[in-house]
Each structure stands twice: as C-alpha cells, then as structure tokens.
C-alpha cells in the first residue's frame, strides 16, 4: 500500500453533516420533480407536510430533552428523513398520513434513541413501516400515473382532496386510483394466475416507473460524484435483487416476476440510492457494505414474493439495519501493518 506524501500547502477540505445533507437534498430534487410530474400534485403536499412535521417535531423533542437546538435543527438531516418518508407514501394520501409518519419517525426512531448518529434504524423507514401496518387502507391510496391516461387533479383539487377529502364534482375515487404494478402482480400471483400472461411487463404501460427511476438515478449520480455515497451498497443491493429474482424466475416463471420488473417497480432503486446508504444505519466497512446491500436485495425480493405486503424494501432495510453491528464486527479491515483482522482469534498471539 502506498501513501503518496504531499508537501504543504494542503488544500483544506471542509466536510460536515450539513454540507453532506445539502448534497442529498439536491439529489432528491430530480426524483421529486419527476414524481410530481408523473403522479400528480399529491406528492408535493406529502413532501411539504412530512418535512414540516419532521422539523417541528425535532425542535419539540430537542426542547423536551433539554438539548441545544443547534446544530441539530440546521444540519438538515431531519429534512431528509421527512422527504424520504414522503416519497414512499401514496400520492392520494390524506394530510395526516405524512404527518403521523414523520412524527413517529422523529420521536421514536430518532430522538428516543438519542438523536442524529445514535439511531439503530433508518427513521424514515420506521415511519413508513408504522404507517403501512397501522393504516392499511390509507396506504393503498395510489393514484394512477398521469401518463397512463388517468384523470389528473389540478393543484387546487389535489389540495382539497388531501386536506378535506373532497373530490371535484363527478370524479369518483375509483376513477383516480389504480393498483400499483406490484399490487397487480401480487393479485395475479396469489390467485394462481399466470404472471407472464397477465401483461405484467414493465414495457406495457409501465414506462412511467422507468422515468421515475431514471430521475432517482440522476440524483444518485450527483451524490456519488460529490462523495456523499459510495458505490458498494447500491450496487450490491441491485445485484441482490437481480440474482434472487432471476433465481426464482428461473424456477417458475409463471409464478414469480422477472428480475427487471423487480428492479424498476416499488422502492428498489430509490431505496438502494437514498435509504440503504444512510451513513448512520448502514454498515461502515467496505466488505460490510457489500454484505449489507446484498442482504437487503435478497430480503426485499423474498418478502415481495412470499410475504404479506406488496413491497419488501422497507422491511428488508430495517432487518439489515438490525444486522449491521454483527456485519461490522466480522468485516473489520485489518489494521495497517498487521496481518490479521482485528478481533480474530489469532490476535495477540
């Protein structure tokens, strides 16, 4: 191993939490714009409500815990928690859904564990899973993508629906809502139907999810370029998804969806880039990151295929969060100058 030595003057690199979070915030913009474009104004309300609720809750919790407001309130991490949670929520959600999720995420998953840097689980995913298991009806209020020819709401109409549950004149809720691709696949698969025959390919009317994922990828590329994330976790997670899905698909193509379908539906790309890479709750060693990401990918496909809920990315991330201390323990890189890993049996002999 070579360490090239530079002479002074050195370029000073300032790196702090707030700067890194700013990179992530900018990276979330293209995906959010695409989601508003493709899925309607409801996404915008979700984001605004979740961010507002998360920030206010953080301030309240800091006050209750008698902790200083700075830098916790200005490091923007709580904004990202709210924003990521909001992007997971259905686009026709009532106003209280993002609020309840954000409050739970900040109070229970972040502040009760001790605030930023101490949380064991990704707060946004905890908030999402709590909403998913607690409000099953509200969490299925997915509106059809605008591109798919569904009736779209104007900004005012969307606001009326979000805050008062009112729909314009003749439009019924059923005209707006539509099962997500994962829901559709699940319905066909659980009823013993033929998945391939049901037209469940992403190439048929599912093009919007590809655009959405491309927008998220653009944000991910920006984060990678600015050094906010490394390649290990996203690549390993996508590999885990593709391999597991290919294996299942190879065994029984009538029952299981193809790997590409798994890749572009639900939260795989978004989760791989924005959620699994959370510096606090992810593994911190290079090999550990690969194991962590791969585990999420495998679990996500298994939960989708055999579990009770259509998407499994959030559950998979929380489960692997739980395994992070163990992964980190077994993947410690050797200390420079030593042959053996720290913590291995041969140490100290």
């Amino acid at each position, binding site marked *: 191993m070579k360490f090239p030595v530079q002479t002074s003057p050195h370029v000073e690199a300032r790196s702090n939490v707030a700067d890194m979070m700013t990179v992530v915030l900018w990276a979330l913009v293209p995906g959010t714009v695409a989601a508003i474009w493709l899925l309607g104004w409801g996404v915008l309300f979700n984001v605004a409500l979740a961010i507002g609720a998360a920030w206010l809750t953080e301030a309240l919790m800091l006050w209750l815990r008698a902790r200083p407001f700075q830098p916790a309130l200005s490091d923007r991490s709580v904004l990202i928690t709210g924003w990521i949670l909001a992007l997971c929520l259905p686009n026709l959600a009532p106003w209280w859904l993002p609020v309840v999720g954000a409050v739970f995420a900040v109070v*229970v998953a972040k502040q009760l564990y001790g605030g930023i840097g101490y949380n064991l689980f990704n707060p946004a995913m905890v908030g999402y899973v*709590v909403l998913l*298991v*607690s*409000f099953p009806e509200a969490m299925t209020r997915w509106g059809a993508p605008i591109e798919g020819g569904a009736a779209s709401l104007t900004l005012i109409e969307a606001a009326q629906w979000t805050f008062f549950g009112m729909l314009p004149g003749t439009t019924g809720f059923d005209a707006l809502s539509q099962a997500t691709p994962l829901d559709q696949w699940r319905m066909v698969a659980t009823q013993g139907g033929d998945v391939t025959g049901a037209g469940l390919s992403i190439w048929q009317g599912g093009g919007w999810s590809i655009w959405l994922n491309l927008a998220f990828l653009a944000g991910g590329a920006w984060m990678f370029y600015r050094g906010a994330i490394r390649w290990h976790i996203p690549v390993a997670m996508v590999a885990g998804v593709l391999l597991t899905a290919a294996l299942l698909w190879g065994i029984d193509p009538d029952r299981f969806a193809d790997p590409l379908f798994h890749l572009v539906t639900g939260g795989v790309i978004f989760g791989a880039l924005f959620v699994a890479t959370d510096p606090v709750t992810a593994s911190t060693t290079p090999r550990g990151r690969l194991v962590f990401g791969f585990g999420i990918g495998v679990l996500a496909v298994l939960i989708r295929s055999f579990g009770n809920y259509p998407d499994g990315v959030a559950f998979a991330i929380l489960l692997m969060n739980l395994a992070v201390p163990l992964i980190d323990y077994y993947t410690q890189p050797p200390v420079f100058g030593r042959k053996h890993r720290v913590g291995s049996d041969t140490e100290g002999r």
Partner: protein
Amino acid sequence: MSDPRLSELALDGLWKNNPALVQVLGLCPLLAISNTTVNAIGLAIATLVTLLVSNGVVSLIRDWVRAEVRLPVYVMVIASVVTIIELIMNAHFHELYNTLGIFIPLIVTNCIIIARAEGFASRHGFGVSMFDGLMMGLGFGLVLVVLGGMRELIGFGTLLDGADQLFGPIAIDWGVRILPEQMTFLLALMPPGAFIGLALLVAFKQAIDQRSARRARAAQAARSPEPAAEAVG
C-alpha cells in the same frame, strides 16, 4: 427472619418493587394479553389468585420441604393451583378462557410467581405471605389493566369492550366507544405497541420517582441548609 411490616409489603408490591415496572418479570403474558381491557382484567385476576394461593401454600409447607428439592415442589404447587384456576375459568368464563388460550396454563411459568414463592413465601409466615401475594398480584394486575386500557383505547378506540365475557350478561353494554373508528392506531394492538406502551409506563414511573426524590432533597435542604449544600457540592 422477622416479618416485614404490612405497609412496606403493600408499597413494595404496588410501587417500589412493582413486578411489571421495576422487576420487569412475566413479560410474556404482560405483553401478549394486554391488547384489550377485558383480557387484561381476566389474566390479572387469574395471576392474582395464583399468587395468593401459591404463596399461602408454599408458606405452609416451607418447614417440610428439603432445600434440595424445593424448586420442583414449588413448581408442582403452582401448577396445581393454575390447573384449578384453568378448570374454573373453562367452566364459568368459557369465552374469556378461549380468548386467553395458552396464556392461562402459561401462568405456571410466570416468573413472578416462582420468584415470590422462593424469595418471600418460603421464608415468611402464612398471613404475611398471603398479603405479599395479594400486593404483588395487584401490582402486576394494575399495570396489566392500565396497559390493556391504553392499547384498547388507541388501537380499537373502545374501553371494556366485551365485558360480558368476564362479568356476565349484566355487563353487556359496559363497553364504550371513545374514539371514532377512523381515528384508531392499529400499531397499539400489535407487539410493538405492547413494548412501546410498557416502556412508556416504566418511563412514567421513573419520572414520578425522580420528581419526588428531587422534592425530598429540596425539602431536606430547606430544613437543614448546610449539610445538604455540602452533599450537593
């Protein structure tokens, strides 16, 4: 060993050494059965009676049991008591018996009961042991009922729903709906809700204790300022 005062025993069981909030024993039934108030009351009464009777019996036989075999003997005593209670519940509160299911026979394995038998009843007289069982059972039962009430209120929006299972036809409309159905939070009924609810109760008890300790210190400081100031410094 001299018998402790009854007021001390009561304070221990109900607050200072509460089986659920301080000893944190018997978590399995505490978390699993506290999803409605009626279930919680049913299990609380069953546990209370078990504690009362087993403490009494263990206290009576304590001089005849050899130390080497005392634990198996106590477990047999407790198992017999639980079997009697199980049969009574099956006969008289059949629906509740079906709802509680495995958790009635599992009272045998509730650590509080063997802990009180071994830790208290095997060393103290009959009356005191019965009183200890009563207070420990009340302490456990009250936490169970409060937790059950919290979870039913938040999860179902009701209180005492289905009370007729326990109290007979007279209680058929004791159940009240407090929150409308749209405002319920299903998480409270699930296992995480039980853990979070119990954690909140434990935290609440700690907060009260710390507050009263602070007040006591302040009162002491007011009475005799100098030594207290030393202690703080």
